[in-house]
C-alpha cells in the first residue's frame, strides 16, 4: 500500500463555510472519504484535538521541514492589510501575521490547495473596495500574483490548485484530494484559472431544471418564479463554470433549485459584479452577459424566434411560483 499523505488545513480571512460545507460530504462521509484517499489530517481547526501550543508545534514542525506536509489547504483570503503588514490577522497565540505563516507553509508543502473563492482570489473578503487588502494565494482578484506570486510552484511542481466556490461543494475538494493522493492531478487536469476540471468542465447551465424555459426565453420576473432567471434576475448559469445542476447540493439542491440565480461564485471577482446580484444589466433590452461562446447576433436572432414560439404552458408557468399549466398526454383527453 502506498504511503499515506498528510494534510494541514489553516483558515484566514473567511467565514469557515467551506469547512462546514465539506462536513456535509455524503456517500461516504468526510472522514471515510479522507481515509479512503489515504489522507491523514495533520491538523484542521474544526476537527483536530490539538489546540494552542500543540497546534503551534505541528505548524512549526512543518515549516522547519521536520514534518512532511503533502497537502496544504488554505481556507479564507490572505489578509495583507493594513498597509501590507498582515496585522488584520495575527496567528492566535503567536502575534505573527498569518500571511507570513501561510507563505512559509506553502513553501514547505508538496501541494497547495486554495479552498474556496476567498483563498483562490480574495472573494467576498475582498469586496467593497478591499480595504483589508485581501488576496488569494496566487491571484489578487483576476490579477495573477496574490500572496505567493505568479511564478509560484509547490514542491510537487503544480501551481496553487484553486478549488473555487462560495462555498465549495464538498465533492469538488474530496475528488481533488483523491486525485492528488493517486498522483493523477497534473496541469492537464486544471483549467485556465487552475481550477480542477472535474467540476469546471461544466457550466451551471448544464442540467438546470429551467432549461426548457431558457430554450424559449420564457423568463421569470421575480425570485420564486419558475422561469429562466437569465433575462431579468441576474442569473449567470450560462457562463458560470461548475457542475451545480449535474451534481446536486445537499442531496437534491442547487441555487437554481432554490429559485435564486447563479452568481458565478467560482469566478474571480464574482463579489463585485458591477450591478445588483439579482438584476440583469441590459443594453437596448438585451442582456449584456450572454453565453460567452455563442455569436451575439445568433443569440438575439434565435431568442426572438424562440420567444415567438414559446408554448402557452411555458409562458404561463414562467411567471408562476408553481405549475399552473401541466404537460398533457393528448391521447388521454
Amino acid at each position: 500500500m502506498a504511503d499515506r499523505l498528510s494534510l494541514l488545513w489553516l483558515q484566514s480571512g473567511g467565514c469557515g463555510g467551506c469547512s462546514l460545507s465539506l462536513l456535509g460530504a455524503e456517500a461516504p462521509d468526510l472522514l471515510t472519504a479522507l481515509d479512503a484517499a489515504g489522507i491523514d489530517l495533520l491538523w484542521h481547526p474544526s476537527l483536530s484535538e490539538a489546540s494552542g501550543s500543540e497546534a503551534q508545534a505541528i505548524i512549526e514542525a512543518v515549516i522547519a521541514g521536520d514534518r512532511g506536509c503533502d497537502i496544504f489547504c488554505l481556507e479564507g483570503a490572505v489578509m495583507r492589510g493594513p498597509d501590507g503588514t498582515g496585522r488584520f490577522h495575527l496567528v492566535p497565540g503567536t502575534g505573527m501575521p498569518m500571511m507570513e505563516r501561510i507563505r512559509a507553509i506553502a513553501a514547505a508543502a508538496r501541494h497547495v490547495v486554495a479552498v474556496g473563492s476567498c483563498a483562490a482570489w480574495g472573494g467576498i473578503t475582498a469586496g467593497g473596495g478591499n480595504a483589508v487588502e485581501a488576496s488569494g494565494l496566487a491571484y489578487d482578484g483576476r490579477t495573477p500574483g496574490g500572496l505567493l506570486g505568479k511564478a509560484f510552484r509547490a514542491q510537487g511542481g503544480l501551481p496553487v490548485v484553486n478549488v473555487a466556490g462560495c462555498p465549495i461543494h464538498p465533492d469538488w475538494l474530496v475528488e481533488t484530494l483523491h486525485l492528488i493522493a493517486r498522483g493523477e492531478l497534473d496541469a492537464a487536469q486544471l483549467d485556465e484559472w487552475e481550477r480542477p476540471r472535474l467540476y469546471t468542465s461544466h457550466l451551471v447551465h448544464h442540467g438546470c431544471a429551467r432549461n426548457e424555459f431558457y430554450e424559449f426565453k420564457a423568463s421569470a420576473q421575480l425570485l420564486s418564479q419558475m422561469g429562466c432567471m437569465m433575462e431579468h434576475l441576474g442569473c449567470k448559469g450560462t457562463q458560470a463554470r461548475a457542475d451545480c445542476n449535474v451534481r446536486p447540493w445537499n442531496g437534491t439542491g442547487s441555487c437554481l433549485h432554490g429559485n435564486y440565480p447563479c452568481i458565478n461564485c467560482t469566478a474571480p471577482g464574482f463579489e463585485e459584479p458591477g450591478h445588483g446580484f439579482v438584476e440583469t444589466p441590459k443594453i437596448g433590452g438585451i442582456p449584456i452577459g450572454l453565453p460567452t461562446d455563442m455569436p451575439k447576433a445568433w443569440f438575439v436572432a434565435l431568442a426572438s424566434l424562440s420567444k415567438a414560439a414559446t408554448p402557452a404552458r411555458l409562458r404561463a408557468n414562467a411567471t408562476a411560483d408553481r405549475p399552473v399549466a401541466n404537460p398533457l398526454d393528448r391521447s388521454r383527453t
Partner: protein
Amino acid sequence: MTRLVLGPFNRVEGDLEVRLDVASGEVRAAHVVAPLYRGFEAMLVGRSAADALVYAPRICGICSVSQSVAAAAALAEATGAGAPPNGRHAINLVHAVENVADHLTHFYLFFMPDFARPAYATAPWYPAAAARFAAIHGEASAAFLPARAQWMQMMGVLAGKWPHTLSIQPGGTTRGLDRGALARLAGLLAGFRRFVERTVFGDRLENIAHLASSDALAAWAEAHAGSDFGRFLAIARSTRLDRLGPSIGRWMSFGGYPTADGHAFARGLVEEGWRRPLPVEAIAEDVSHAWYGLQDGGPPTTGRTHPQLDNADAYSWCKAPRLDGRPVEVGALARQLVDGQTLIVDLVARYGGNAATRVIARLVETARILLLMETWLAEIRPDETFIRHGVDPRAAGTASRIGDASGSSGAGLSEAARGSLGHWLRLRDGRIAHYQIIAPTTWNFSPRDATGTPGPLEQALCGTPVRPGETDPVSVQHVVRSFDPCMVCTVH
C-alpha cells in the same frame, strides 16, 4: 503570577486567543482576543439593498442562515415587507435545520473531544469516553457525520443549498414547497429524529423537552447512561463541570423563531433572578479596548466601524456590546432561561449558569426545536404563497421591493444557535447607507469596556483551576468551548 497565551484555540468557529494571568493554581484574570478583522459593515455601505442578502450569509459559514434571517428581517422592517405564514414556517424550518446542526456539531465535534485528552487518562470513565468521543477517530463522529449530512438534505429541499442560501427574503422564501417536497421533508425529519432519539438521548424527544427539574435530570441520567447525553452528564458530574465557567447572572434573548404573534422562544432579559422585558434601545457598543476609532461606539443605529490600531488599551477586534452599560450572556442557556424551560430555570436557580448548564441547555433546546419543526411542517399549506413581493410582477428587473426603499431604517433581531444576533441598517435611495452587526459571540467574548468591566467569558474564566505545568489548561478549554463561540461572526 504567570501569563499564559492560548492559541490557536481550535474547535471553535474562527480565530481565538485567550490570555490568562494564573496564580496559586487558578486563573486570576483573562483577556479574550479576536485576532482577525474582515470589515463586512464597511463593505455593505453603498451597495444596493438587496445585495445585503448575498453578503450577510457569507459573514459566517456556520451561522449563515442566521445572518440571512437577521438581514432579511432588517430589510423587512425598513421596507414594510413581511412574510406570509408559509414563508414564516419555511424560514423557521431552514433556520432550525441550521441551529440543530450547529448544536450537535458543537457537542460531537467541538466540545466532547476534550474528554478524550490524555489529561483525563486516569479517570475511570476515560477509556469509554476516549473511544466514543475522540476527535476524528471516535465512534461518535463516525455516527454523527453521516447523520448530519443527511440532515442537511433538508437544506437542499428548503433553501437550495447550505451554507449561503439566497432563498431567505424580506417577504418570505423564494423556495415554495409542493406536496412532494413536504413529504420528503417529513421523511428527513423523521429520520433525524430517529438518530437523535437513539444516539443522542436514548429517549423520546418529548421526554427531554419536558424534563422539569434537576432531580428529574439526575434520575433520567441514571436511567439513560448509555446515551451520549447520559454519558455527558456522568462525565460532567465526575469532573464537576458545574463549577466551571460561572455566568455573570444576566442573560438575554431576542426571541427565537417568529410566530404570528411573538416568538416560539420568548424575547426577554433575566437578571437578579427575574425575567423582564428586553430594552433593545439600551444596547450600545463600547470600543475602549478594541482596535476602532474612539467615535465608533454607541448604539448600533449610529455606531461605525473604522479599524484603528493606535489605541494602546485595545487588545481585540471585538467591540464590547453592553445592555444598559453592563455585559450580558447570550446563547441557548439564555434562550431557554428567558423562555422559562423548567429544567433550565431550576438548574440555574440551584447552581447558576456554568459550563455544564450551557451544554445541557443546548441539548434540551435541540429536542424542543425538533418538536417545533414537526408543527411548522404540518402547518404549511402547499396551495398558498410562500413570499409576498410587494411589487407589480410585470415590472421586470425589480426583483423585489427592497430596491425601492429610501430613507428608512430597520433592525433585524434574531437568535442564532450561539445567541442574539442583530443587524441594524438604514437605506437611502435603495442603497445601504448604514450597517451595523452585533453577533452572539461579540456579546459573550467582548473585551473590557470603559469602566474596566470584563466581558462574560473573561469573567467566567476567573477562578478556573490550572494544574501544575499545564500550558493549555483543559478546564479553560471546557469553559471557552461551553459558550460555543463563533469568532467569524464576532469579527465580521
